């Protein structure tokens, strides 16, 4: 699971690292917090499988089918918000 930082689980860094290491189109690109990952073409529909699996495993959360959509996962900012919400609702 992510490292604690100021009492919060670090979310963006491991996800950013995963994307840069596993998504071909993102390998040589600087991924900003607001960079559109899906609608920007960095993650394709096959890449979504790995990304969601990584997030679920790394942060020990489980998405419902209705929670997974391009809007909620389209940037590191949005992924962080979604993961924090999931972690919060788990507590």
């Amino acid at each position: 699971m992510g490292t604690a930082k100021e009492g919060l689980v670090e979310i963006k860094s491991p996800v950013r690292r995963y994307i840069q290491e596993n998504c071909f189109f993102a390998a040589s690109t600087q991924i900003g917090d607001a960079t559109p990952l899906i609608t920007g073409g960095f993650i394709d529909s096959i890449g979504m499988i790995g990304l969601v699996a990584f997030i679920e495993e790394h942060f020990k959360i489980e998405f419902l089918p209705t929670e997974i959509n391009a809007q909620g996962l389209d940037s590191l900012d949005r992924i962080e918000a979604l993961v924090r919400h999931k972690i919060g609702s788990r507590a």
Partner: protein
Amino acid sequence: MKVRIASAAYAVPRESENVEAVLSRERDRVEAALASLSARSRHKATLGLGLERVRVCGSRQPFDLVLEAASAALQEASLAQGDLDLIIDFSTFPGENSHQVSFAHKLSAELNAETSLNLSFKAGGCAGLHIAVKTAMALMANDGKIRNALLVTGDTPPQGNRTLLPVTVQGDAGSAMVLRQQPGGPEILAVQVMTLGHLYDAICLTRENGRLAIAVDALRIENAVMPIYYLNLYRLIQDALASASLTLDDVDHFIYSNISQRDRDGFGRMLGLSENDLPKTPMAEYGHTFASDLIINYQTLRQQGSIHPGQLLLFASAGIGFTWGVTLARA
């Protein structure tokens, strides 16, 4: 309770049309559908379809195809017409002249299956077969009198609506599958289905100037459907396998729909399959025939003698609804 696929059959019209000719004839529709996409996405929309011709209803309409397929399936299963306890019609686009009549009810009369329970539902698209199988199994489990079920679909688009780009080009077909509880035929081990209602209008039947039309929201497909298309399919496959204590390595035959070659390639990449793991299908000749694809591809494997006793079959598809489905069966 063990339910088996006793038999299956399909029928296609004799008439066919070149896909290039269809795209040319429906150019205005294609351009309108793709107008909301980026230039790059518009270009990609017509690449890698892998469809050369489509069969088109001429003298015979979808019900005629369904009747032919149903008759062949009943014959193969050695079922007398009066032995049918349940008929489910899961056609998505049954045709402009037949949408007020359920094929299930009409078949019940035509086949003299007077006491069969008849049921019809729409909007499962390519994944309608899984919903039909699951519904039949649920009814069989609930009612001991229902032992033999006939599942049918027959689809043809409204006139001038054969192109569903950026997804596919539709060909016409009818197909049938018989399920029963007696021995003989692949045993169904698991059926997993899911729908996401908010995507109901990504591809849907509508009316334009008073005529039936299929509306394709290309931008919604690109931004809302495709990002989760393989993900949901993958998850259902894993759920189906896990429920039967099996893994992907146990699957001998992947039976997937004929939406396009690039979609079949995507399915293969999703599962890490090699080129030979996903067999060639008649898609170039038939086009995408909605839920009939799975039965066509299953029958093709059977006719080739590729399916042997004990082998594991995995049927998977996704389509209008939006619907995803997986059926697992042991030959």
